[in-house]
């Protein structure tokens, strides 16, 4: 797996690069701002995913998110993993507006769990989703009151949250400490309640997650 890292803190850039390399992830480039990142991608670099810090020069506000939106438009097959200091659900929502395919939004303080972090990176690179549980949690609170999500049982919502984090059924089962069979039952029920057809196949998971994340606008 080849990735690009865009992070303005030189220290973190260096340490993170070291840690990723040690995990067998190739860091094609580590840049300090969004402009350098886009320039690098413009040169036709072959990478699987980009890791982007939200706050970068020159204004240190949402450069990373804006760069991510550009990347999703111009290189839709590229996985985008956003690192943020805070849970900023608005940023996550903007990012997910174009689909949950190959999108990740993680809190920076979770990066120390390198196994989890490289898993998330791998998921995003292969078109999956990786949302920080805290981000998901905030979106859940927003979406609890209205829309089709209101029809879900609390347990089903837990399952959907875990799905939004990007977990597989096995992963969800492990997180919620239930059997995989039970998870499958919940997932089927969720798809039914959200009117998602069987024909959509694996895509239904992404659809469910999107419905879930857009719950605030429903």
């Amino acid at each position, binding site marked *: 797996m080849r990735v690009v890292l865009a992070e303005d*803190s030189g*220290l*973190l850039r260096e*340490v*993170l690069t*070291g*840690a990723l390399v*040690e*995990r067998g992830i190739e860091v094609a480039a580590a840049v300090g701002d969004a402009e350098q990142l886009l320039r690098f991608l413009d040169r036709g670099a072959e990478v699987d995913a980009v890791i982007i810090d939200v*706050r970068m020069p020159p204004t*240190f506000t949402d450069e990373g998110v804006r760069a991510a939106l550009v990347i999703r438009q111009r290189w839709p097959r590229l996985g985008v993993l956003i690192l943020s*200091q805070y849970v900023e659900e608005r940023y996550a929502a903007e990012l997910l507006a174009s689909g949950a395919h190959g999108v990740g939004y993680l809190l*920076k*303080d979770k*990066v*120390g*769990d*390198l*196994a989890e*972090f490289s898993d998330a990176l791998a998921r995003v690179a292969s078109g999956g989703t990786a949302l920080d549980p805290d981000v998901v949690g905030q979106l859940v609170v927003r979406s609890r009151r209205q829309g089709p999500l209101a029809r879900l049982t609390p347990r089903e919502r837990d399952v959907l949250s875990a799905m939004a984090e990007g977990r597989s059924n096995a992963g969800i089962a492990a997180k919620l400490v239930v059997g995989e069979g039970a998870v499958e039952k919940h997932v089927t029920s969720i798809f039914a309640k959200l009117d998602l057809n069987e024909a959509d196949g694996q895509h239904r998971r992404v659809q469910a997650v999107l419905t879930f994340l857009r719950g605030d606008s429903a």
Partner: protein
Amino acid sequence: MRRLLRPFPWAQLGLLCLGIVLAPLQAIALALTGLAVPLAVLSPRPFLFLAEGLAALCALDRTRFLVLHGRAVGQPLPGAPRDLDGRDQMAWLLAHPAHQRVASYTIVRLGLAAIQTLALTVTLTFPLVVLASAAAGFSLGYEPRGVFLGFFDPVLALLLVAVTVTLLLFGVPALVRGLAWVDHRITTTLLGSAETDELERRVGELVSARERTVSAADDERSRLERDLHDGAQQRLIALSVLLGQVEGRLAAGDPAPGDGGALALVRRARDEASGTIDELRTLTRGLRPPILEARGLDAALSAVAARLPMPVDIRIDLPRRPDPAREAMLYFAVTELLTNVAKHAQGAPASVEVYGDGALIRAIVADAGPGGADVARGTGLRGIATRLAGVDGRLFLSSPVGGPTVITVEVPCA
């Protein structure tokens, strides 16, 4: 009827007479003060002296009303700030609305005094002349006709005397009261609003000081957030990544021991941890440390000085501890100034002196460095000045090129 039978208004009469005496004196003082303005080319002293005299006469004038109204009219005229030089004091006085009004007041008063004099003279002397003449007329008889009023027959003379006495009993007191009332009104209008002026000026000052304080606090918060985000937070994340790496290696039995091994990573992690601690300490410098609350300025500033690279001589002489807000302000100002010294004075020793009484605390930070500091250029100094304005404090800077630099911070504590 009761209104008419009030006792004779002696107080008002006295007040009027005093005013009549003062008015020409004021006019003379004003004229001389005016003449002294061009003299300021040579020296502003005569102007300042005369302006003070004029202000004293005005003070006396205002105080006249104490007798009658129980309080003087208006407020004493504000004096020019003593720390300005003579010419600036003169400009200050000339620009001050209360002082400008003194000029118009003096002129109006002179006219008023003339009218008052005329009115009082006529109303007081005319009845006396009538009565004296009548008395003379009666005692001397009506012949020869040369005697004043003597051409009247006794009935007419008696009638005239009756009218005069009525006038004297009721008309004169009414006139005196009326004149005194007009006097009071004019003085109140022209001198009394010094109070309003002063309040307006204060409100204006406070509004802008509050705006500056609010935006300074805002800037401060943004700066703090940025510093924390760029510094400590990134370091801690890096630290957690390093520890994550160590964890991975230990879990795998540290396959790469030696230089790049877990031990090196742990050392690096420890460095990052102590770097973070240093950074947080630097950040909290601008905030309120617990030692300030517990032990006061002396202890807190000594702690700051101990961390600085140059020797700092600290002398604190305060009769009692200032209130927390002012104490924090002084702490912040002196700490910032000392940090500046550490940054710019090339290791030159510095001294801090804080002293004061109940009304004003002064902190003087001096260093023997190369000088050349400028409030306009140093954001640090401007930041201090802005924060000081929030408590009506001021900052004075003397920093000639070549040094020494002496910065005085004044914080009033009313």
